[in-house]
Each structure stands twice: as C-alpha cells, then as structure tokens.
C-alpha cells in the first residue's frame, strides 16, 4: 500500500507553464528520485502530489484513489522540506506529534510512535528541546521523524540535504537509505544533485523544463541515456560532447564519458595538450585540448602525472561511445 500514479499533470502559474504533462507510475515500496536542474519544476510536481498546489489539469492517484481534490492532510503523505520547517514554538516531541494529534490519534499511540521514530533517528536526548536549540542536522532528523511518525503511504522529500554541510549530507543520506530499507515505504525524493539520485534511487525520473526526459534505474540511465540531456546530467564529471562533423561522423553529436577515455603519451585517436589536471587521489581528471575533438575531460583511475602543456593522445572506448541525432535523441 503506497502506490502513486500521475496522469498527464500540467501546472501553469499564470501564462507560465511549469509542468507540461507529466505521466508517472510508482509502485509500492519504491524509492523514486526526481532529479533535474534548478527551476525545472521538481518541487512543483512534489507539491502537486502533496496537494499543496492544485494542478491545472491531470490526475493524481494514490493507492488507487483519485486524490486530486483531497486536502494534503488526508492524502496519507508526509513531507520533509529543505528548510526543515519545524514549528518554532513546539518542542521536538510536539513537533513530531502535532499531525497525529490533529488527526485525533490517542495520546498513548502518539507516544509509542514518537518513541519508535526517535530511537530510529537517535533523537531521544532532544525530545524536550525546541528547534532553535538544535543543530541543522538534528533539525532535519526531527523533520524526518515528524514524517515517520505519521506512518504515511508516501514519503515526500524536497531537497532535504541541501542545507546541510558535506559531511552531514553523506550521513543523513545514509540514514534516509536505511530508513527506506527498514520501513519499506514508498518514497519520492527531489534533488538537483545527481550523486544523491544515483546513490538513493531504485528509479530515477529525470526532469527538464517541465517534462520527463527519462525514467529508469540509475545504471540504466548511466548506460543507456535516452538523449543528450540525460547523458549530460547523469555522471560526474559530465560526459564529453563532440560535434560529429569534426570527427567525420554522421551523427550530430558524439558523447563519451570521461571515464571511458584512455590516454597514452605516444599514440591514440585524438591528439591533445593537457590544459589542467585535478588530482583527487583515487582518480585524476585531465582537461585536454584536442585538435579534433576540442576541449575534453578524461578521468583516469588512480594517480597520473601530467604537467599542463604536455601532449597526450586520448582514445575513446568504441563500445561506450554514444551517438546523438539532431533532435538530441540517442541513436541506437
């Protein structure tokens, strides 16, 4: 219990169309991540699912019931926000319990659920504190706890890690992944960070300018991107795009991921000069200015010494080279 179906949802703010017809199905227990650049409509779509925003047209179906006109509190959802959105005047305990209290849940049951959630998220020592007396990471855990306590059919996360520092972000990401495994609940998670998307998702929905570009598992998107946008968005460093005409190819654009290029000081497909080298320890990113291919990025696993100015030859792995047509779609 916790499936979601979105049928042709459109949303316009005045004349500006933000969602241009979204169709999506989420099965029970799935962890779905909406990913896309800022302003592409991820939050708007999430708010439409939550009922905080009315769609201009289309249907939202949760667990087989059309909830398009159901108020948010009655949709069986819980939401975690980027800015935590804790009630400043309530203690941690009451923050978590407010929703249940509003729904008329007996006090004993509320206490039981708060007990479970707070031990799951290590919040017991803070139950009597107010949000102002907590750190950012603790606040976000309270916000997650507030969602858990409701035992919703659907968890909605709107960039929950964006306000945390890098170390906390990794910890909290782990915590959310464990939470999903324990609760086996359906979760929808919005982020603009493709690393979060790749690490958390069962299924990724790539959005761009109000449209779905592709839906698929992380590896599916990585290995078989449907178009140039997805290919460029998934993977870091970004895929190299080279004008097909420069390489004498029929395709409009040729794409090669930095990790699918090898370098050799003596021979190879594309001759180039090292512009800059980034040494990350585990791998090295080289920026090469190639005669044929233009500026490309090469990712080499391990340490590789290359001074700027040296000449190197880069060779793409032909089995992992993508070809895109004039419409941006991948040519199979």
């Amino acid at each position: 219990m916790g499936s979601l179906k979105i049928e042709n949802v459109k949303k316009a703010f005045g004349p500006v169309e933000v969602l241009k017809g979204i169709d999506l199905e989420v099965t029970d227990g799935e962890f779905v991540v909406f990913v896309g650049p800022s302003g592409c409509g991820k939050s708007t779509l999430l708010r439409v699912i939550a009922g905080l925003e009315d769609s201009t047209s289309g249907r939202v179906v949760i667990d087989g019931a059309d909830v398009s006109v159901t108020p948010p509190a009655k949709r069986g959802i819980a939401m975690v926000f980027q800015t935590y959105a804790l009630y400043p005047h309530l203690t941690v305990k009451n923050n978590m319990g407010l929703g249940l209290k509003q729904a008329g849940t007996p006090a004993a049951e509320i206490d039981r659920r708060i007990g479970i959630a707070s031990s799951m998220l290590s919040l017991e020592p803070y139950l009597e504190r107010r949000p102002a007396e907590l750190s950012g990471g603790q606040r976000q855990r309270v916000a997650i706890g507030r969602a858990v306590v409701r035992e919703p059919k659907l968890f909605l996360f709107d960039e929950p890690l964006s306000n945390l520092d890098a170390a906390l972000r990794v910890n909290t990401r782990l915590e959310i992944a464990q939470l999903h495994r324990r609760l086996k609940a359906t979760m929808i998670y919005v982020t603009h960070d493709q690393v979060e998307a790749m690490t958390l998702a069962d299924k990724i929905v790539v959005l761009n300018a109000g449209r779905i570009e592709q839906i698929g598992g992380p590896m599916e998107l990585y290995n078989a991107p449907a178009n140039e946008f997805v290919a460029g968005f998934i993977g870091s460093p970004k895929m190299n795009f080279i004008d097909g005409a420069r390489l004498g190819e029929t395709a409009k654009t040729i794409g090669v991921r930095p990790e699918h290029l090898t370098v050799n000081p003596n021979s190879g497909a594309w001759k180039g000069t090292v512009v800059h080298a980034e040494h990350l320890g585990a791998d090295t990113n080289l920026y090469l200015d190639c005669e044929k291919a233009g500026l490309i990025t090469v990712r080499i696993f391990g340490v590789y010494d290359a001074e700027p100015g040296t000449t190197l030859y880069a060779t793409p792995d032909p089995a992992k080279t993508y070809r895109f047509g004039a419409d941006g779609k991948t040519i199979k």
Partner: protein
Amino acid sequence: MSTATRSLPRTIGAHAILLTYTAIALFPVILVIMNSFKSRAGIFSAPLTPPTPGTFDLIGYTTVIGQGDFIHYFQNSLVVTIGSLFFVLLFGAMAAFALSEYRFRGNTLMGLYLALGIMIPIRLATVAILQLMVASGLVNTLTALILVYTAQGLPLAVFILSEFMKQVSDDLKNAGRIDGLSEYTIFFRLVVPLVRPSMATVAVFTMIPIWNDLWFPLILAPSEETKTVTLGAQLFLGQFVTNWNAILAALSLAILPVLVLYVIFSRQLIRGITSGAVK
C-alpha cells in the same frame, strides 16, 4: 571586532551625536513635565528651570484630578486606543495574510485598493462619516471612534504586514497544512508569532495618532460621557485665560499610558529581533 570600529574617538563621537539627539528629542517632554510641577508664576518667570522649593506647586494636578471626570476621560482614551489597536492588528494581519498567501483573481488590485487609504487622509470624509454615524445612531459613543480609527489605521497595517508575511517560510505553512492544521491555526499559531516584531511596529505607529487625536472626538463624541483626554484637556484652554498648570499636568499624565503601551510593544520588538531566525 576590528580596532577601527572601536577606537575611542569614534566611540565618543558616536555617543556625543546620540546624546545630543536624545537631549533634543526629550527637551519638550521634560519641559512639559518640569513645568507641570510649578506654580503659574514659576512657569512664566523661569520656564527653563526645574521646580525649586519656591516655585513647586501641585496646583495643576489638583485641578486636573479635582475636575473629577479626568479619570473617566483617561478610561475613554484607553478604551478607544486599545480597541482600535486590537481591530487594526487583527483585521490588518488577516487581510495581509490573505493578500500575501492566496492567489486569487484581483489580488493585486485588492492590495492596491487597501493601501490607497495611506495616501488619502480620512479627515476628508469627516462630513460623510458624521452623517453615517448620525444615521446609525452612533454619535457620542466610543464605538464610533473605534470604527473610525480602525478604518484609519488599516491601510498602513495591511501594507506593512503583507510585506512581512511574504517573508514567512512557505515550507512552514505547508508543513502545517500536511499536519492538518486549519488555515486559521496556521495564521494564528505559526505566522502571527513570526511577524510579531512587525506587528509591534505597526501598533506603535497606529497608537500614537489615535491617542493624540482631537478632531474625531470633538466631532463624533464630544459628550461628557465619551470625552477623551485630549478633548478633556481643551477645557483648560480658554479664549481669554488658559490654565497652564492644568494643561501641563494633563499632558504629563497623558504621556503615561502611551509610555506603558510603548514599553510593552518595544519589548516585543526587541524580543522578536533577538529571538533569531525562522529556521
């Protein structure tokens, strides 16, 4: 902090400027209070000196208190001020919330319409207001004054408060909606506490002109029963003789209640500022 912003001459300079300003601002108030404790001769012979044993006289206060109804005038003023303030803040905040929170047809137009009152003095409508009050039998009631002052205070309140309400986190309101709070609960429990400092500002700006107003009490409620302090003090301003002792004493007394209200609101203001961010 860097030494540049803390150097001694700068500190002295800043304090000198602030102290001078304070002295200028307080001068008339202190003058009124000082002279209210002096005899008539004392006021006229040496208006700038504090009361000496020779000039000290409570005649002003005894006249005012002896007038009997002054306590009553005070009550009227307080009722009118606090009543109007209550309605201005309540309706102003509610209208501001609606304007800033909900998207509906004519939202901007409605906002403009509500703000128009800032530019048009309500006194232009005195005749119409008087006719209205006569027709509805509200002449010589405090209700009439409260209604007029509420109307007078609302435009600025709506204007200022809607700006502040726009800054209240959407996520917080949405969290409340998902938890099943009604729009009223969201407004009163989540939004109002967060805009309390700005409401205190509006309260101060609204309160002082109401307390000091002479025009509407004179026109709408001049009866003995409904006189306000400012109107009551006119009693001592004769065409030929003015009872300066009594006027100064009445004015000094009239400062007190506003001062108390002001202290209450400015506390709110400071508490709001120092209680920290929304998040």
